[in-house]
């Protein structure tokens, strides 16, 4: 309502440069990625690139990153930078383990959200009410989250598990598989036909061993999009992140929306902690379990240009690289480098068609360097694969930082009056 009245008088018809809708770009991206992986696995002989096992592991590893990223999205859309995601996630892991070993997985999920949201509330009190610098508060919450969980673990988990750094085992979720579909896809995957087998492998990984938490998380992406972009509440929340003074003058409750956004952000990060604890390979709280995933979630959000769709892509990419490494080791990851060279080849042709000589030349140089890396190495050291998200984020920031668009008032302290 508010926008239509606002826009009519003084916004000129903005030139719509993007003719293709966002969802179509997303589908094209997915299709392109599958073709690329398929061709790469065919040419290098690493069929694990698109196997169902890799996909399954990738999904599991992508969940915490995706949830942390969504947390970052909510908070930053309301103009509050949240680098305390890591601390909130740690609180979530503790809450999930504490409730999980006593009352089962659903209690773990609820407790994780509550614990994370408490961290978010603290961040909101410090940054919104007291106007503390967002980065400072985030750093403090990371310290505090780690301290509180260590203290509570020693106090509560040690008598039970005889280890202050680990909780008693947590009961897992039942997982569901679409049995008939998975078998049929399995047959197709064994067929070893270009593209078809690869698509089958990826789909089979997606429909096998799915836990309710996975489904919930996947649903949270469109839900966040709907709430933030298609409701009145979301419009107000985002207006607070773009221009709080203007929003206030239109009667939007700036503090209220910021509080809600940061608390939801903490809850989502906490849920990410639950995804770590309830991971079938782990099933307990472990000190240092989050391993910087809150920060990687933040990276996924930046990679996705502060949009839910892009964020999903970033989390999938980072989870995939991690899953591939865990599942099949550094030599398979090296095959990905070959895939990137192929991708750069396509980009070079595209840039030449558009007569952008400089970009094409830069892409050729990078492609040649990566190809030399590919033929000179036997494998990518595992130490580096784990930090691929960090490198990708730095590269994206370096190349595209001019095109990324964060909320205009992100990180600024707003004071009413």
């Amino acid at each position: 309502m508010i926008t239509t009245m606002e826009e009519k008088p003084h916004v000129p018809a903005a030139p719509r440069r993007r003719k293709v809708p966002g969802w179509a770009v997303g589908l094209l991206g997915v299709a392109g990625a599958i073709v690329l992986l398929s061709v790469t696995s065919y040419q290098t002989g690493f069929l694990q690139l698109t196997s169902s096992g890799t996909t399954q592991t990738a999904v599991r590893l992508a969940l915490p990153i995706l949830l942390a990223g969504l947390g970052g999205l909510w908070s930053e859309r309301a103009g509050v930078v949240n680098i305390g995601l890591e601390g909130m996630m740690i609180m979530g892991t503790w809450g999930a383990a504490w409730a999980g070993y006593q009352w089962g997985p659903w209690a773990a999920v609820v407790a994780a959200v509550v614990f994370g949201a408490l961290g978010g509330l603290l961040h909101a009190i410090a940054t919104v009410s007291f106007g503390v610098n967002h980065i400072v508060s985030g750093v403090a919450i990371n310290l505090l989250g780690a301290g509180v969980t260590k203290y509570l673990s020693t106090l509560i988990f040690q008598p039970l598990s005889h280890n202050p750094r680990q909780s008693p085992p947590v009961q897992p979720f039942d997982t569901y598989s679409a049995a008939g579909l998975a078998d049929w896809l399995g047959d197709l995957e064994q067929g070893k036909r270009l593209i078809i087998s690869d698509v089958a492998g990826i789909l089979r990984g997606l429909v096998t061993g799915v836990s309710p938490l996975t489904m919930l998380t996947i649903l949270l992406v469109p839900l966040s999009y709907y709430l933030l972009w298609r409701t009145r509440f979301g419009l107000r929340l985002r207006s607070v992140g773009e221009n709080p003074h203007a929003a206030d003058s239109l009667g939007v409750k700036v503090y209220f929306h910021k509080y809600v956004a940061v608390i939801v952000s903490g809850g989502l990060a906490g849920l990410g902690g639950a995804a770590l604890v309830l991971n079938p390979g782990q099933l307990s709280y472990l000190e240092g379990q989050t391993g910087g995933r809150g920060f990687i979630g933040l990276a996924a959000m930046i990679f996705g240009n502060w949009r839910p769709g892009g964020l999903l892509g970033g989390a999938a990419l980072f989870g995939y690289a991690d899953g591939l490494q865990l599942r099949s080791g550094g030599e398979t990851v090296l095959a990905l480098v070959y895939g990137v060279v192929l991708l750069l080849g396509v980009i070079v042709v595209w840039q030449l068609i558009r007569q952008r000589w400089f970009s094409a030349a830069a892409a050729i140089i990078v492609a040649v360097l990566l190809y030399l890396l590919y033929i000179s190495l036997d494998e990518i050291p595992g130490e580096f694969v784990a930090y691929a998200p960090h490198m990708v984020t730095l590269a994206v920031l370096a190349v595209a930082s001019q095109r990324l668009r964060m909320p205009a008032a992100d990180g600024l302290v707003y004071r009413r009056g």
Partner: protein
Amino acid sequence: MGNLRGKLLPPALAIVFSMLLCGVALVISGANPLRAFGVMVTQVGKGSTLVDIINSTGIYYIAALAVAIGFQMNLFNIGVEGQYRVAAVVAAVVGGSIALPPGIHTLVIIIVGALAGAAWAAIPAILKVTRGVNEVISTIMMNGLAIGFSAYLIRRDVFGELRGNNIRTPEIPESGWMPGISFGGSGTMFGFLFVAIALGVGYWIMMNRTRFGFELRASGESSTAASAGGVNAKKMVLVSMLLSGAIAGLIGLPEMLGRDHTFSLNFTAGIGFSGIAIALLGRNHPGGIAFGALLWAFLDKSGLALDNVGVPREIVTIMQGSIVLSVVVAYEVVRRVELAAEQRRVGRELGTVGGAA
């Protein structure tokens, strides 16, 4: 008067508040907070605790100085954590593989550490200056990469060697060590402490007595005013980031040159983040930082005694975290109160306050 009160009151409030908070937490968990605090105080006199506290203070002091240089111009070098890790492993590798006369060897290790720290900080600095990349995000990413990079360098097929159950870099020969001051059974004080003190003095002189320090503070107060006054903003970002990284590169050296003589998996992590907290507590002032570092070191080392009375020593970490958060809140509250008082005073003197008050 008001100025001094504004400076000292917030940290005092924050420490009292955090002590109360932790006291309540201890009471809830069934422990006696007074007894816990008493044990921590008496622990100072026992064994090597006092020397440990002093050593630790020196390390935290260097870390907080590194952070403070960036803070002076509103530059958030979250990457101190990664910079000192990379610097330590590079310094250990270089120090362990060269042979030089005593003194010169130590000096070379120190210079290599500072250069490596500066080099790791140069990446986010260059990204910020040339591409406008926010330094908070890029330094967080560099912290992650630093863990991977250091783990790679100490792999056995790269520079590392297996000693017992621990992977580490080759030991630095004795010519590269830095002698300390021994107190017999009460431990040995790191010789590097004198470097820390020198850094503190140098920092004070740089900030208050040089053109660079003035330009740095001016950029922090108002970047637009500073550039109108002829300060090259990009150059300031680059130089202060590199300087911050170079000092960060020294953080790992007191322990390495004075005790460990190698970089291993037991490397002390997390000092960079403590440095951020201490710089905030000390308001970037060399004296304030020294106090903050001492407090942090006391909590760390005396907290070890809490296990003896059945209190988890992690309560100390909660206390540190709550001190940081409450000190920044307290600074903000005091600032607002003083601002309001100032406005009222001006209003009274101009006679315009009327009924508005």
